[in-house]
């Protein structure tokens, strides 16, 4: 058995390094540091088609992440996709005629919601609605239209 004070030091070091490991995981590895849900407000947008959008997909404006998608549901009356987003409180000055579009990061990347600010003087409030939306571009649909068009042109 080693001298007790060295043993104490080693136990202390062990516990400290374990806690450092946990902090490392919490702050460096996960998204804890980048976004917290406490200081945020919620807005909803209705899309004709929200494509591959998922809960926790990011919401960005001008390329900067400002929030995330919290819920996606289907409205059986209007056949639209209802997307709830929570946006960081510090970006509370988005105009109420902001346009929401579903974009894809890169050709095959994840889908996200992009908000393009409008020119209105009124700001979006907690629980507000975004009226102008652009649906996700479905690659198969776009390709199909393109092929159809080029076939039609060849016939002429």
């Amino acid at each position, binding site marked *: 058995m080693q001298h007790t004070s060295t043993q104490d030091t080693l136990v202390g070091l062990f516990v400290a390094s*374990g806690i450092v*490991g946990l902090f490392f995981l919490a702050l460096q*590895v996960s*998204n804890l540091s980048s976004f917290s849900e406490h200081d945020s407000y919620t807005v909803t947008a209705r899309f004709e088609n929200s494509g591959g959008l998922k809960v926790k997909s*990011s919401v960005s404006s001008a390329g900067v992440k400002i929030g995330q998608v919290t819920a996606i549901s289907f409205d059986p009356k209007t056949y639209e996709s209802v997307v709830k987003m929570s946006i960081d409180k510090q970006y509370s000055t988005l105009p109420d005629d902001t346009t929401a579009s579903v974009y894809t990061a890169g050709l095959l990347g994840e889908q996200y919601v992009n908000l393009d600010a409008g020119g209105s003087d009124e700001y979006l409030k907690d629980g507000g609605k975004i009226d102008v939306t652009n649906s996700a571009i479905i690659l198969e649909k776009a390709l199909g239209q393109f092929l159809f068009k080029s076939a039609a042109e060849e016939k002429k």
Partner: protein
Amino acid sequence: MIKFLQNLGKNTRTGFTKLGRGTFFLLQTISGIPSVLPRIRLLLNQMYSIGVLSFLIITISGLFVGMVLGFQGYHVLSDFGAEETLGIMVAASLVRELGPVVTALLFAGRAGSALTAEIGLMKATEQLSGMEMMAVDPIKRIISPRFLAGFLSMPLLAALFSAVGIIGGQLIGCALLGVDEGVYWSQMQANLDFRDDIVNGVIKSIVFGFVTSWIALFEGYDTIPTSEGVSRATTRTVVNSAFSILGLDFILTAIMFGDN
């Protein structure tokens, strides 16, 4: 035929009595924990032999597991041109699964077997009965500090394992195979959730620490007091711990990650 049925009945009965003794033992151990707290030195000694002495094997294994994940992940992901997601793959597999499970298996082999052998020998050499003769409760004096130390050390060791593994993956992925360092970390941070991934991983390691310490101590306490009995008990500790860790891991994973 009758003999077979007799054997089956006997085995079932001994299995259930053992389970009953185990549960009773666990309750006694837990009720002994409050009396450990005033004598913190007992706990520190055990933290040293259970936690600190496992430190090296855990960190080195973590580093190697992370490096292997880096190689294998890169190999598969580069087929799809998705090397950038290496960070997510390494971190998610370590934090959710490999960290808690491999740490618990190593812990059972390194610390669990030592605990069983120590307590089994104490019983075989009648040190435990000696303590009772001196009106010292062996559960409070011997078992509870070891249980608490195992229970506390396990999450710390698992966190270290994952953290070191992620650094090992970065070492291979970024320094050797040329994945961009910033992308490795930012993809990881964007896709791992604190509550869903990290907290669930820690919960897993707490459960495994609880079960492994319980099995190790009970097998030692319940051993047949001969040298053969001790050796059998040590084997049973490792085998039973491995079974319960993997089985519980399946159940916990199904509960935590099953719904999406």
